[in-house]
């Protein structure tokens, strides 16, 4: 099987790669989001502590 044949998926390229492509995208976005959420959570704890120290 050639590379072109592989990517063509017997004519079902759109359906097969559309499935796996979107799945990969969902995973990547979710990983970015949980990491971002962690950054924000840490930042807020820091901000609160700094505000507390000023009192």
């Amino acid at each position, binding site marked *: 099987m050639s590379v072109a044949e592989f990517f063509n*998926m017997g004519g*079902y390229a*759109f359906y*097969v790669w559309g499935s*796996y492509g979107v*799945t990969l995208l969902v995973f990547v976005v979710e*990983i970015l989001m949980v990491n971002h959420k*962690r950054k924000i959570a*840490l930042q*807020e704890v820091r901000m609160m502590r700094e505000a507390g120290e000023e009192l």
Partner: protein
Amino acid sequence: MAINWFKYSAPSTFYGLAGKLVPFFAIPAAVLFAIGMYIGFFVAPVDAVQGEAYRIIFIHVPASILSMFLYLIMAGYAALGLIFNTRLSSMMATALAPTGALFAFISLWTGALWGKPMWGAWWVWDARLTSELILLFLYFGFIALHASIDDPRRADRAAALLAIVGSVNVPIIYFSVKWWNTLHQGSTIKFTGTSMHIAMQQAMFVTLLACWMYAVAVALVRVRSIILDRERTTQWVSELKEIA
């Protein structure tokens, strides 16, 4: 040796444990995905009826199983939180909801892309598809209800009730292909054996394991942020190394 099983039911102790556990799930998840995809695309033979299009199964089935499994785990944690008033259980339920919703979405999305070439339709209002769509809406409902109530403990209780009531939908999804005459095919993997080629089974099983480990890793990272958010005013949070 007496083990204190309740030690890790406190958010303060679980926070550290969860952080240590993440790589033990994230790394195997990535490796298993690679193996699963390799078997699915290069080892598993082409399907006699559906041609190459059937390869969607290697993500469609694991994502669908995970969407139902995670819902039950989420409802289980929510119920524990409701019954025993344990904060961490409710936080785990909240952490699992977005990942469960994403798996339900992947299940529907890959199903649509598989349905179009095989059935000639992206979507049909068949019992299997409709009940899976309801599952996605239950996840949305859980997330939205939790977010709409300011007091986190009250939000936990209200969302828990929704999660528990909604769990009746999971067996409905599972048995829908038996109870109703659906366009969606019946179970490929049965307790009595399967008609699938061994490499197809392996690809599906390995990807399922990868999806499960991915879900655990992501939920653990998410629950740590939820713990930080909700325990912000406590002494132990302000003493964390990563805050300095």
